[in-house]
């Protein structure tokens, strides 16, 4: 699959902006379901005192990670929260006491082999950043006797416009990243690691090349800047030349793909035991007067970030969690930051509206040429309109990863990616 991808404007305005902490918010709202997998059961009650890193939610299910308090303070209320998926989960509102006292349970974990490593990663609350937020320990929980892994692909492509939070991880904490990579390699007995960075981050590439110069089995791969270079299957292919097939996990091809910030986090967790309670976010978009990178406690309301980046709520026409290609619209400034967030983008009306009207498909084939999975979005659209489920299956609708490239390039302004999402419901 020679991968071409599409060219986007990068807008990496914040690439050089040092991550700064935001002032501690008065309250945080921590959701009991922050990613795919089972939601957590609440471990605290209203009125309880909690400390930073204290476990406040957990689940017996394997496909789940515990949730920890990002602040010290008092549990004020427990409320129902409507998720974007339409499901409702519990949310814990904690009033901060300003001391940020660290919980006694925060201790470096005892790790000696793969099983204890996987358990530690589960306890850390770590999950991936790919929107759905795949719990990291599940990726690492492979039977290496049966299916050896030979390649660790560290995804630092960051192909979405605007977002620079992974880039900042590489620049600010390169040693953590390398240490995390080496830990994963050690416990999973992986021979080679590839740190994949898009060419548009020369500083990060330079730093990583220097730092890994004496490490023979860690390679820094500079990738073409094209979208969606950071999609799991694409980055795995770019690094190893292996194609991850339909319905396959990367491990079936001897590959594990981890996000770069995840690698850095794993290193720090093994050293300190501090679970995932804060996130680095890029704040950007034309409605923010001061675009920047910030470190925020999980559960911080978006409104705090709008204030911090000098945006006026009244001037924001569209608010995104994530990048402009795959990010989700937020409709409420009180929405809390979750573990899977990596950016909050705010746009004024000028950039938020799609100006061009939809016209008839002219069969130009641009969507077909743009699709990284080599699907035929225009045919999929026709099959969806005809409600032809068989055809949708034949056209491999299930391989669509909703990257949005097809919609982006279409001169007739068809919402092809959206149609595919609707069509998926049809064949389910």
């Amino acid at each position, binding site marked *: 699959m020679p991968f071409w991808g599409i060219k986007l404007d990068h807008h990496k305005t914040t690439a050089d902006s040092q991550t700064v902490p935001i002032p501690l918010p008065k309250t945080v709202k921590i959701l009991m379901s922050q990613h795919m997998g089972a939601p957590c059961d609440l471990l605290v009650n209203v009125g309880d005192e909690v400390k930073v890193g204290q476990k406040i939610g957990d689940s017996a299910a394997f496909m789940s990670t515990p949730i920890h308090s990002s602040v010290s303070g008092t549990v004020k209320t427990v409320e129902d929260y409507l998720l974007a998926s339409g499901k409702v989960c519990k949310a814990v509102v904690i009033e901060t006491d300003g001391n940020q006292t660290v919980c006694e349970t925060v201790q470096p974990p005892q790790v000696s082999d793969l099983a204890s490593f996987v358990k530690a990663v589960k306890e850390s609350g770590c999950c991936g950043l790919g929107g759905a937020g795949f719990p990291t320990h599940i990726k690492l929980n492979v039977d290496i006797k049966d299916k050896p892994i030979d390649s660790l692909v560290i995804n630092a492509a960051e192909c979405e416009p605007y977002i620079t939070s992974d880039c900042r991880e590489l620049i600010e904490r390169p040693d953590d990243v390398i240490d995390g990579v080496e830990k994963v390699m050690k416990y999973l007995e992986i021979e080679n690691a590839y740190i994949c960075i898009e060419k548009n981050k020369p500083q990060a590439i330079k730093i990583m090349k220097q730092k890994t110069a004496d490490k023979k089995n860690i390679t820094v791969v500079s990738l073409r800047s094209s979208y969606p270079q950071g999609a799991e299957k694409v980055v795995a292919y770019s690094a190893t030349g292996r*194609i991850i097939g339909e319905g396959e996990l990367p491990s079936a091809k001897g590959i594990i793909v981890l996000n770069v910030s995840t690698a850095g986090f794993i290193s720090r967790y093994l050293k300190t035991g501090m679970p995932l309670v804060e996130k680095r976010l890029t704040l950007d978009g034309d409605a923010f007067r001061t675009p920047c990178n910030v470190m925020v406690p999980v559960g911080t309301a978006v409104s705090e970030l709008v204030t911090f980046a000098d945006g006026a709520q009244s001037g924001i026409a*569209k608010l995104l969690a994530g990048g*402009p290609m795959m*990010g989700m619209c937020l409709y409420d400034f009180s929405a809390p930051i979750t573990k899977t967030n990596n950016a909050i983008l705010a746009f004024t009306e000028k950039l938020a509206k799609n100006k061009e009207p939809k016209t008839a498909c002219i*069969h130009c084939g641009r969507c077909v040429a743009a699709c990284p999975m*080599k699907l035929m979005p225009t045919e999929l659209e026709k099959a969806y309109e005809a409600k032809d489920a068989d055809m949708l299956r034949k056209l491999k609708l299930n391989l669509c990863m909703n990257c949005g490239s097809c919609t982006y390039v279409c001169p*007739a302004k068809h919402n092809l990616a959206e149609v595919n999402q609707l069509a998926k419901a049809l064949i389910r």
Partner: protein
Amino acid sequence: MDKMIVSPSPHVRSGTTTAKLMGHVLLALFPAIVAATIIFGGRALMLVGFCTAIAVVLERICGIIMKRPDTTGDLSAAVTGVIFALNLPPTLPFWVAFIGLFFAIVVTKQLFGGLGHNFANPAIVGRIVITLSFPAAMTTWTEPFTADVTTLATPLASKSANMLDMFLGMTSGCIGETCSVALIFGFVYLCVMKIITPTTPIAFVGTVALFSFIAGEDPLYQVLSGGLLLGAIFMATDYVTTPVTQLGKFIFGIGCGIITCVIRFYGSYPEGVSFSILLMNIVSPYIDMLCKTRPVGAKKPSKKVKEAN
């Protein structure tokens, strides 16, 4: 903002629109129009202008009658008008051109549902209709640089033109087909601007050259004469009526090339470009059906699944 916009991703779009793509095609046709004006004079330019205007007017009238939104802004009608005009002899009466345009815009395009729904290239259908109905008018040629009507045959029929003259367009023929160099300019422009991929024109022209060579004709002469370059560059690359994948476009081009040569060498018409494109337009949906892309990593459906379906 009282209500923020909530919409599914992606939240950005490229600036490319149908109108912009068509605008680039018009620009790419510009050298051919200039060359035609120099070679065949003001009458040729008037014919181009007339056809473009009438195509747009017909498109608008159809839109009003059929209660469709105004689509003249997408410039596709203008492109059809220009390409149609470039396929006419310089002295063709305006009313004959009008009849051709009526079949192009009204019958072929609008009655089938407008841009994107037409099964064949409107300009080609228009041209074929008048070629069949007014054979005399459609084969009345003028000498370059004079307005004299000539009884001389076009280079394709006479087989005796000078190669350089054909390259520069100093031969008799349709308005826009004679000047190869202007057409090639347009081709390079379209490819550089990524408006078309070179697949179809190269497959088409390559096949004609190869076929000519095998049939004992002079390949270069066959490529430069007749409407081959105009057809291969501007008509066989029409989005709507040609296959969508690269493999499909390749097959389409080869098919056009073979049919063109068969008609030229063994048929009763001297020229086969229009007919070949029309025929391939008709089979294009079938080519599309056979030339689907192979999704990355897709599993072949197992036998069981097939039976269950």
